[in-house]
């Protein structure tokens, strides 16, 4: 493994100049592969200020010295980083004229999700009438926000319009040196969201990437930065509950959250990227670094995730509890079916006094799926009177799937309390029979039982997300029990 990586790195560094080229700045797409020229090209394309290019290059050079981590309970083929296109101008999808041209399987899923016809058209790229034009929705929405001084835009736009904020906060929570995929993202990220809530402002709406239509095709190396100033509040929803048949194999995103004194940020994700087919062919490799810092006292960051997609998920939304009395929360439902693998969990770093964290993880494994919870709770010696409560439950459907729990607990002072509970259960034949006896068929029964099992987490989601997440849970487990 190691020698392979070295070999790969060798080829890589050698090839860099051998295949050096002058990229045509007018072209919409970079050639395959990664080197400093490609990074300069991306930066130039995006008309970035000098500091950004410097940052990318530093990240890239650092990445060259790193090895892909292999400690996770995941098996997947070696990724060829030179076989990836790192920049393509937002794709102009072929516009279809009617829903008849859309993949029937996709339509079926839409129907099950209860997505309206208009919405279905939009999501599958069918031309939509002017009334439904999302641009107008976006405009009214942006006006409401800007009156409050809230900045909500694409990351690229923020780099242009608010470079000082980007410069001040970017990479302060996830430095490019953090890990292999974070370094890669820092070098080549294309776009993402930027969100700034000024002092004392409660954002009145759920901010959602839903409105960020133009960034829909740049999900591969996304970068999101959320800043909540003193006393600010925001609830942010990531993702789209429609099945994105994105064929980009590798996704490596970064999300950074900064919560200052008395601020609160709720970050919710429903992830249902392409999981590969029933035989485990295809699917997204999702390597995400998500971290928030509760910088000021009494601040709070809460992560809620429902993960049903991707072939490989490597993801640990974390909290650094620096401010005294700050609170970190992690609520997660992770589903694996067929050949999906997930290694996910959280890190709660207690640094401030009286800090509190709660971890509720619900893993659901079906088919040949492998689901691992990996969680670190570290209470620093200065973090006196701190508390953590962790609960990790695993639900197994069938006997070929797996559930694994890797808790790491480090407590460096005597006044803090850490509690960890873990359970593993199965959907019993009794429960299924009971439901069926009331007229509920097996698949609906599984949906019902699984949703009941995940309820503690689902209820943390914003309303509109929760309903869709529930349906998604049932759908992603369809056909998992014979």
């Amino acid at each position, binding site marked *: 493994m190691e020698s392979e990586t070295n070999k790969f790195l060798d080829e890589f560094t050698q090839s860099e100049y051998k295949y050096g080229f002058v990229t045509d700045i007018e072209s919409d797409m970079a050639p395959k592969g990664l080197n400093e020229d490609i990074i300069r090209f991306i930066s130039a394309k995006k008309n970035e200020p000098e500091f950004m290019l410097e940052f990318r290059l530093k990240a890239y050079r650092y990445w060259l010295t790193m090895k892909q981590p292999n400690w996770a309970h995941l098996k997947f083929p070696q990724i060829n980083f030179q076989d990836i296109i790192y920049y393509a101008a937002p794709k102009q999808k072929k516009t279809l004229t009617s829903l008849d041209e859309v993949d029937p399987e996709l339509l079926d899923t839409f129907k099950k999700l209860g997505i309206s016809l208009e919405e279905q058209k939009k999501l599958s790229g069918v031309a939509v009438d002017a009334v439904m034009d999302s641009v107008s929705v976006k405009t009214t929405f942006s006006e409401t926000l800007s009156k409050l001084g809230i900045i909500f835009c694409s990351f690229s736009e923020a780099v242009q319009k608010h470079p000082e904020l980007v410069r001040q906060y970017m990479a302060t929570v996830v430095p490019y040196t953090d890990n292999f995929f974070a370094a890669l993202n820092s070098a080549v990220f294309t776009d993402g969201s930027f969100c700034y809530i000024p002092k004392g402002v409660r954002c009145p709406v759920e901010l959602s990437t839903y409105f960020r239509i133009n960034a829909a095709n740049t999900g591969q190396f996304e970068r999101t930065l959320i800043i909540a100033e003193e006393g600010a509040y925001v609830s942010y929803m990531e993702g789209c509950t429609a099945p994105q048949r994105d064929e980009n194999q590798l996704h490596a995103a970064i999300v950074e959250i900064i919560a200052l004194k008395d601020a609160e940020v709720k970050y919710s994700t429903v992830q249902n990227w392409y999981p590969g087919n029933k035989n485990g062919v295809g699917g997204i490799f999702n390597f995400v670094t998500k971290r928030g810092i509760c910088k000021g006292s009494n601040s709070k960051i809460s992560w809620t995730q429902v993960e049903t997609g991707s072939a490989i998920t490597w993801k640990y939304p974390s909290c650094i509890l620096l401010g005294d009395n700050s609170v970190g929360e992690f609520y997660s439902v992770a589903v694996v079916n067929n050949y999906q693998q997930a290694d996910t969990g959280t890190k709660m770093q207690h640094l401030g006094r009286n800090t509190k964290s709660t971890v509720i993880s619900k893993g659901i494994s079906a088919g040949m799926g492998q689901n691992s919870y990996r969680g670190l709770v570290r209470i620093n010696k200065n973090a006196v009177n701190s508390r953590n409560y962790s609960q990790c439950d695993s639900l197994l459907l069938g006997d070929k799937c797996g559930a694994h729990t890797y808790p790491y607990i480090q407590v460096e002072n005597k006044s803090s309390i850490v509690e960890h509970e873990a359970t593993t259960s199965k959907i019993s*034949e009794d429960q299924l029979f*009971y*439901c*069926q*006896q*009331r007229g509920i*068929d097996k698949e609906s029964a599984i949906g019902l039982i699984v949703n009941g099992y995940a309820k503690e987490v689902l209820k943390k989601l914003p309303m509109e997300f929760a309903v869709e997440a529930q349906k998604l849970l049932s759908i992603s487990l369809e056909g998992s029990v014979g």
Partner: protein
Amino acid sequence: MLLSIKNLHASINGKEILKGINLEVNEGEVHAIMGPNGTGKSTLASVIAGREVFDVTEGEIKYKGKNLFKLSVEERSREGIFLGFQYPVEIPGVSITNFMRTAVNEQRKYRGLDPLPAGEFLKMMEEKKKLVEIQSNLTNRSVNEGFSGGEKKKNEIFQMAILQPTLAILDETDSGLDIDALRIVANGVNTLRTKENAFVVITHYQRLLDYIVPDYVHVLFEGKIVKSGFKELAIELEEKGYDWIKKEFE
């Protein structure tokens, strides 16, 4: 005839439990099934409901004149068969309201009806709650989770009242009930009785049959119905126990 069972044999993991059951139930009738522990009463109920862990090795069951074995568990339910469980199952995180709404709407779908509007459903819930006198906040709790023994049994009758089955099999619904609850449960059953439906009541105690008066009483022993009679048989059993039947049988 509503239900007709002929020479029914059923086994689990190769062990035969039912060894030739014959039973006929007409619309409007109440049948009581009694018998010592472990003789196959619950097994019979499960086989009628279609539980897959039991293998039917011989015999037939006709329900409304049709071969019951052709129907899945849920189809049997939608055709009006209800089983009140001896040991109701817990479903964590699923409220009774949500559970019953799903059940009612699946049943309606089967009959070609639209889902019941939420308002109407809740109204029906309120009505039926009164019938079985269950605490109103119970329906917000997860199905059977942390319920007392009596609450679980009342919940079964409550579900029966909502689903209004044609054939209700109540498996020891009286066990674990206090006197008041017993009366309430019996009342529930009596209110739901019509000329079109039938009840099969599995019980160990003649006491229940004072409230729910059966047309027939059967004794199940070692996988067979060894004696059938009228309600007086239950009184006789209460007095004498099962020994005389066992002797007669042997």
